């Protein structure tokens, strides 16, 4: 039942708004709204009950194992939430002057420093509000760099075919043409194809390493050389830093610019869709172009650097300071972990993924790259099951829900057919990983003996399989009051 269906005209939840009508207006009739909005009219309890009940219909990290590949669904420490919501932080107006902002600025400055160290880059800007905006900032800096050198022949961005959709979409937003580079059968970039593709028109390449195929790109230095020699820059999609935290730095691999998804590696919550934070780090040559605002420090005083302090900056990409509250959460997490904790993240994320891959292999499942080590994630393909049993990846995924597991990422990356991209993260216990493996085995058995059962899943959730085609065809995007 929708909240609107619980609404009744003239029900006022009085304490939540001023109790008495305002007596002055001064707003002429011509500017005034004629008809009241459809906002629900419910009591406080009705609202609380409605949204409490709704929340219970969700799978989440706090309730379920959620091995969604490329999403790093690990535990979000509650302290990060509680401490980032201290009144002093929540109440700070974005235009609050520096002398009333030293506490907040100190956190932002520290976080910049930590992220510099983690990525091996020269400088970091915290502003971008998610991974995709970080990518935008990065590619816009690449454009600004070439522009500053009057090198306007560079019209193309190279993107491996395994790349996340945000990569090509970002290149387009920065007015670059996208050229796809194929992957070889081991999951590495096809170096010969790359060599053939680069040229004076190459503005740069966008890479993820470990790639979204769940493997580490071994010839990364060679790739960097090829692109750099052609005058292009290297962009690192750092959405998936979890596997290499403390182990290897993008700066050392030769990257010029990187964005990080703090809502993955730094464990800020995903909130059912966001918010995230996508800070960018750059090598020396891109430093002047970093988006503002930045935080600087002089004599133990922190202060902002804005447009006027950074004339070559690509400017600001958010009205104020990006998703400040998310940045605070990431900072708290980083302080809880410390350097030794960061190493451990990579180690145990990798251990969990490799263990899971090994056990699923033993159980007879096919891996996309069976000869590779897994990073923090790995890809399993159900091509065989789809062909022989008529049970495809989506069926497995839905059936996993019945077993109490959120499904891994399905049908991504696009180049592996019938794939599941599985990322257990370091915060899951062996027991839960084993339980997932058992569920996969059980579903495999079901698929062999009772395929229809698997294909009809899920059975135990608030709804059964939803009709996506109908959703897109008979668009119903908002509730309308019944005609009165």
């Amino acid at each position: 039942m929708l909240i609107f269906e619980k609404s009744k005209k003239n029900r006022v939840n009085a304490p939540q708004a001023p109790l008495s009508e305002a007596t002055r207006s001064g707003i002429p009739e011509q500017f005034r709204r004629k008809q009241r909005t459809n906002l629900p009219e419910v009591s406080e309890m009705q609202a609380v009950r409605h949204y409490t009940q709704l929340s219970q219909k969700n799978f989440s990290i706090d309730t379920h194992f959620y091995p969604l590949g490329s999403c790093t669904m690990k535990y979000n420490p509650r302290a990060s939430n509680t401490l980032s919501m201290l009144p002093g932080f929540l109440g700070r107006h974005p235009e609050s002057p520096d002398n009333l902002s030293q506490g907040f600025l100190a956190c932002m400055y520290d976080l910049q420093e930590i992220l510099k160290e983690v990525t091996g880059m020269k400088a970091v800007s915290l502003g971008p509000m998610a991974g995709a905006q970080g990518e935008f900032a990065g590619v816009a800096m690449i454009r600004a760099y070439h522009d500053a050198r009057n090198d306007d022949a560079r019209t193309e961005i190279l993107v491996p075919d395994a790349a996340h959709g945000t990569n090509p979409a970002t290149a387009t937003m920065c007015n670059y043409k996208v050229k796809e580079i194929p992957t070889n059968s081991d999951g590495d970039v096809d170096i010969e194809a790359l060599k053939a593709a680069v040229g004076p028109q190459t503005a740069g390449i966008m890479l993820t390493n470990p790639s979204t195929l769940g493997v580490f790109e071994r010839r990364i230095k060679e790739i960097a050389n090829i692109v750099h020699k052609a005058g292009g820059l290297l962009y690192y999609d750092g959405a998936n830093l979890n596997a290499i935290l403390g182990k290897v730095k993008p700066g050392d691999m030769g990257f010029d610019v990187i964005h990080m998804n703090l809502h993955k590696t730094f464990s800020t919550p995903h909130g059912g869709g966001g918010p995230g934070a996508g800070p960018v780090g750059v090598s020396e040559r891109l430093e002047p172009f970093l988006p503002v605002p930045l935080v600087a420090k002089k004599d133990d005083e922190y202060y902002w650097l804005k447009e006027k302090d950074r004339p070559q900056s690509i400017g600001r990409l958010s009205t104020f300071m990006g998703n400040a509250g998310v940045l605070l959460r990431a900072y708290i997490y980083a302080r809880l972990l410390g350097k030794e904790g960061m190493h451990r993240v990579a180690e145990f994320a990798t251990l969990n993924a490799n263990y899971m891959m090994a056990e699923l292999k033993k159980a007879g499942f096919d891996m996309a790259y069976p000869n590779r080590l897994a990073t923090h994630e790995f890809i399993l393909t159900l091509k065989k099951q789809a062909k022989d049993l008529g049970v495809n990846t989506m069926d497995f995924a839905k059936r996993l829900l019945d077993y109490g597991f959120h499904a891994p990422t399905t049908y991504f990356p696009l180049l592996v057919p019938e794939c599941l991209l599985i990322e257990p993260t370091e915060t899951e216990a062996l027991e839960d990983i084993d339980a997932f493996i058992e569920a996969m085995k059980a579903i495999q058995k079901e698929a062999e003996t009772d395929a229809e059962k698997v294909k009809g899943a899920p059975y135990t959730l608030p709804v059964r399989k939803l009709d996506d085609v109908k959703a897109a065809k008979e668009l119903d995007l908002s509730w309308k009051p019944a005609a009165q």
Partner: protein
Amino acid sequence: MPFIPHTDEDIQKMLGAIGVNSIDELFAEIPNELRSDDGLGNVAEGMSEMEVSRLMKERAEADARTLCFAGAGAYEHHIPAAVWELTTRGEFYSAYTPYQAEASQGTLQLLYEYQTMMSSLTGMDVSNASLYDGGSALAEAVLMAVRANRKSKSRRVLMPRTVHPNYRRVANNIVKNQGIVLEELDYDREGGFIDPDNLPKDPGDFAALIIPQPNFFGVLEEVDALTNWAHEHKALVIAVVNPTSLAILTPPGEWGETGADIACGDGQPLGAPLSSGGPYFGFMCCRDSFVRQMPGRIIGRTTDLDGKEGFALTLQAREQHIRRSKATSNICTNQGLLVTAATIYMSLVGAQGLERVASACHENTLNLLDALADVSGSNKLFNRPLFHEAVIQLELPVEDVMRALSVQGIIGGVSLADDYPELGNAILVCATETKTAADIETFIAALQRIAKRLTANACPVQPKMA
């Protein structure tokens, strides 16, 4: 180990199953010369939760207890306690984007309700499920308008100077890469608004006109006339609005003859704390006919195998994960949790409540203006109707006044010196429903003291007696 549940026995068992001797072997594919195993020298050691709590409390404390009369795109409203107690429930807080619809009906239904609320507030047909913030939502609206305007191929968009300066910057920083030009429209110095009578008679081909309501100065624009003018020139209208104001102001869907085409803005006033500027959320609504040009996620109502009602992401073919380089935008992660808060906020205050909030804010700003009128050397600019925010001109240097106020913990508004130097020593002030008469008095008294002192200091001959 912090957040890691493995015991020594677990580790041994797992390594055995993999067939390696150490965790380190699992990193064997990383070329040795790239490894940085002791490379986090500049990162401090881990702290206990208690230690981090102490640190963060000290820092939060350092910035607390200000009395704030700044608005300028971020408004201090009362947020009912239930909003964040519910929003931070683990099931909302720690869920991912609802890719498995059946396991995410809570979030999906809530987003559908959100879309309904925003459609109603703006008077538009459809809403998406959020963008990053107000500034970037405007950028997306510009890109969308250029894509969607079938009658014009122009990449010119008219941007009034009465739009928030940072919105203009963000929009420009984003859209300029695609060769789109935001052409400024100057404002009337008396009224602080875009005078419809002074619009270019022959504006040439342009894709869209942006109309802020209220505008950055708090002034109400002649939205009907502006909308009609743009439509007459085959341009689309992009409304930039404050959602609280929509409880009492004409919604964009009803502007002019046929309404605005796209409405966007920042959802912060709907339940998001000031929080240093974020996370907030951008909202975007449009006409039915433009829905396939809209960026961001959209939720649709549908049915399940048994015919039962349910909710799912829909029209995904617009998005980057399907359409890749041809997508309507690169946005992926949005601001879901803030939308959760906003939806709960709107449910709690309700239709009437939001009107009261809007009216109370407006009344409080009028009270502040009355009080400022008595402060010598302070002068309200612009003679037009306003909502909830206003520009004040000071006789003294803004920077000095603001600094002196800040020492007393008062944020006296936002200086316009950098963005509108033509207005002299101007500040933008705002008093939401959270401000009491006593708060206003505190502000005024401080201002008067400071004015006295600064005037005295500026005096070439120092008065003999303090």
